[in-house]
């Protein structure tokens, strides 16, 4: 019985008349302290699933449960890190990080001290006073992550947090995140389309099919913990990567063709 239970979740969108089935009967279970990744080609419905679990997308079929209690709307136990750059440009790094505390009415003094701590945790000490425009993409993402940690969620929900970063920065941040999550035994559901990332971080990897977004396969990653990006070179790692890629390749190819078509259709509007 997991902390987060997703059962039979389906979602369709009406795009110019015809219906696009983004998600089809998705079942998913995340246990206490577990790190689960959902991987799938672009456009397969990952973000849709993300926003449904996060409670941003109220109308869908199926049920979302947290601790067995049905979760409706945005949920205090779920913290979200978004795919798009989501720092507030008019707030400094520190002000960004402490936003959740400010919202829940924590005193300025306390939230500042906790904010600085979090910023140290993501390795950005010295940048507390900088505005996002003065930070690199990687740093902004770290700020968003720290912000979500400030929320102290039971379940951390991330949608391609490193999607916009270059591979090397990503590898380094993954190490960082991995270290934090492992030390806090943070229950995490990571949505990604990066195979290495998924293998490197997860206890389990959930592979989604292109469209409709179904769960195609679930792979348990039993690489020794604590892990770092050095595991990259181990043959098992390569095995997992290869295995997942074989599954994804067909889906991705479907996606690439279709996506262009979709864009063309919408672009023509």
């Amino acid at each position, binding site marked *: 019985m997991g902390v987060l239970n997703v059962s039979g979740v389906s979602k369709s969108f009406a795009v110019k008349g015809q219906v696009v089935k983004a998600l089809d009967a998705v079942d998913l279970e995340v246990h206490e302290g577990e790190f689960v990744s959902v991987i799938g080609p672009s456009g397969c419905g990952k973000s849709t699933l993300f926003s449904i679990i996060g409670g*941003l997308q109220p109308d869908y079929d199926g049920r979302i449960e947290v601790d067995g209690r049905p979760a409706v709307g*945005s949920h205090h136990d779920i*913290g*979200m890190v*978004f795919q798009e*750059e*989501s720092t507030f440009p*008019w707030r400094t790094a520190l002000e960004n990080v402490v936003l959740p505390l400010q*919202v829940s009415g924590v005193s300025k003094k306390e939230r500042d001290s906790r904010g600085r701590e979090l910023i140290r945790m993501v390795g950005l000490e010295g940048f507390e006073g900088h505005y996002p425009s003065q930070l690199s993409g990687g740093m902004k993402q770290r700020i968003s992550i720290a912000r979500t940690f400030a929320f102290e969620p039971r379940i951390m929900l991330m949608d391609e947090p490193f999607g916009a970063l270059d591979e090397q920065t990503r590898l380094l941040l993954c190490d960082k995140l991995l270290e934090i999550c492992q030390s806090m035994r943070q229950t995490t559901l990571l949505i990604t389309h990066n195979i290495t990332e998924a293998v490197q971080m997860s206890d389990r990897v959930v592979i989604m099919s292109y469209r409709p977004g179904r769960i195609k396969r679930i792979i348990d990653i039993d690489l020794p913990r604590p892990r770092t990006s050095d595991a990259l070179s181990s043959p098992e790692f390569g095995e997992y990567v290869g295995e997942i890629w074989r599954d994804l390749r067909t889906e991705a190819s479907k996606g690439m063709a279709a996506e262009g078509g979709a864009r063309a259709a919408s672009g023509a509007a």
Partner: protein
Amino acid sequence: MSGLLWYKRSLTLAVIVAAALVLQVLVSLQIVSPYVVASPSSALAAIVDLIRYEGLPVLFARTFAMTFVAALVAIVVGLPLGVIVARSELLRRSFEGWLGAAFSAPIILLYPLFLVVFGRGYVTLVVMGALVGVVPIALKTIEGYLAIPRVLENVAVSLNMTERQRLRHVTVPAVLPHIFAGIRISLIYILINIVAIDFLVSIGGLGYLVGAMYDRYDIPAMYGAILFVVLTSVIFFTILERCESWLSKR
């Protein structure tokens, strides 16, 4: 920031001064007829008399006040209007573009009728000013409202913000810069309209003064008065800048 800003300011100043000098030379060399363009020096000199005999300070204060009130009205009307339109797909579609053009059409020509309705007084000027001022503010508000990043709104939801918190932390700070841009534009519209109409019907502000000086064919004094119109806009812009940086700092 401020370093650059200061640099910019001083540059602008330099350009203005340079232009003034060139003008001075042109006029004093009679290359430009002094019956058409007054030399900056004589214009400045004339200001003294304007203050002493023509009550420049009062007239200046009036125009300033009228512009200010008109701007306030324009904001109070234009802001909500913008929000409403922005929220309605239909309204937006129809308001943008063509209507925008039609709107900015010659409202000023209707001043006689406004005189009839609102009487020959400050009210007319304020009303007409506000009228032309509303449009840019509304348009910019729409623009800003549509430019709020969806993702930030999602963050707001995911943090369980209340409506008020959301307004305070997301909507307002995101739209504010656009609104200020709108206010800048509309301020110019308002000032020009108020001054121009006052010029035509002598209600008693800087516009009237410019007109009176022209009727006496006192060209330097006329330019002196016009200088104060420009000064008004500069003052307003400075104030706006302050407000904006102050507001965005919180």
